């Protein structure tokens, strides 16, 4: 089983297809981390998808067939380690425990698996070492 975080961008006219149901029927387990969808506007959704590599690939094919653009959120794209001074300000606002201080070395540690992509850390980082993930998407 693999786990992947996907960013979906819906065209404005696309709100009728029950895509979540379709993905579930294809055998994927889904966790909606963020969603902003309304008729006539571009919709955005961040999904955490769990399934076999094969099922995930099929799910992505299905979504692309629906004119939905997809970004895959991977590790290492969010925090710029060379700018990070390990102060810990971001840990104050991280709701999921993805950003924590190692209480031995007092270095900042980031666990992408726990990250819910809320983005609160971006503005809380005094060193501006965490960039908006939408800016750095592949």
């Amino acid at each position, binding site marked *: 089983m693999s786990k992947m975080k996907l960013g979906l961008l819906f065209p404005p006219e696309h709100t009728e297809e029950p895509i979540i149901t379709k993905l579930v029927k294809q055998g994927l387990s889904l966790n909606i981390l963020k969603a902003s969808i309304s008729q006539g506007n571009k919709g955005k959704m961040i999904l955490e998808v769990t399934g076999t590599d094969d099922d995930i690939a099929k799910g992505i094919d299905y979504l692309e067939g629906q004119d939905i653009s997809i970004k895959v959120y991977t590790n290492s794209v969010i925090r710029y380690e060379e700018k990070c*001074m*390990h*102060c*810990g*300000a971001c*840990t*104050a*606002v991280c709701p999921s425990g993805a950003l924590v*201080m190692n*209480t031995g*070395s*007092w*270095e900042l540690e980031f666990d992408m698996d726990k990250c819910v992509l809320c983005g*609160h850390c971006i*503005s*809380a980082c*005094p*060193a*501006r070492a965490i960039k908006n993930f939408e800016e750095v998407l592949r």
Partner: protein
Amino acid sequence: MAKTISEINEKIKQGKAVVFTAEQAVAMAAEQGVAECAKKIDVVTAATFGAMCSSGAMLNFGHTDPPIRMGEITLNDVSAYGGLAAVDTYIGATQPSKHKGIEYGGAHVIEDLIAGKEIELHATSDGTDCYTGEEVRTKLTLSDLNQAYMFNPRNAYQNYSAATNATDTLKRTYMGTLLPNMGNITYSTSGEMSPLLKDPKLRTIGIGTKILLCGGEGYVAFEGTQAVNKASELDNGDMHYAGYTLSVIGDLKGMSSEYIKAATFEGYGTTLYVGMGVPIPVIDEDMMADLAVDNAHLYTHVQDYGVSTSARENIKRVSYAQLRSGQVDIGGKKVKTAPLSSLFKARKIAVELQGKILSGEFIMTQPVATLPYNAQFKGLNAEVK
């Protein structure tokens, strides 16, 4: 068995001095006791790396031909003070740039200068008979300047209140983002590594004390602004120190980008993270007793930063050990804690200073005068709109 600073300096020069970081000294004192440590250890290195808003740099540009008496001055679009002599200025860390606002401010200019980056200077003047120039725009780097020294009116806070927010709305403060309903607590003191918590009676730190400032050589210049020297004894015999501060000075040209960082606190402003290391000579057993105090016996108050008043109510007294544990119990609620100053960097500075003393590269200075010990902090009695 008392030791003088000159005796310790002799040992440093002979390569015989025993130098511990503040954390190492705390650990050794817990094992072997204060008396034994006082005999064995000569110097303890304390350090901090935190946001210090009251910081800035004095710069001298040299004269153009024809010369100009710079009035309105900007460096990379950040205003610098034009009220000094013709080509002198002071750039303050918190000054925002005209176009990028708090995302690029005086702190960033100082950081860029230290990193050797090119800075754009723009200055205008009305022109005088002796200074006929009216406008200059040029690019310069740190090495082009005659003098460039950091002069910070208030650094190295001995102790600072931890922050929480008891209101029901999120607050963006100089203590970071504070979640509503006491959703978090932030704190910004390096605890058992903090220089002024290690010499709380100012017995060895004085005017002229040589320090490590942003990786380069610096000095204690004076009492810091808003210094408060108040200590209260708790029921268990521990001391709770208020907040003495230091004014420090040091040459930008010897500083390292690793120990300085320009920063932006969202919704608040630009600030400068300053790295400072202070050597504390173990002159006697009493000095060692202060140096041996650990995070479990150093305290601060948690205050409600949701309320805008100069006399915030203390919600709870907590030790730095509690703050560093990751959560603090407030009225039955477990509140998450987060540091704002970098303990990782502070530790690095303490180790670097230790190395410089061991190698004989860093010799301690005898203060030329003591710092005022009874500093009081007065408010401003005026109506505010």
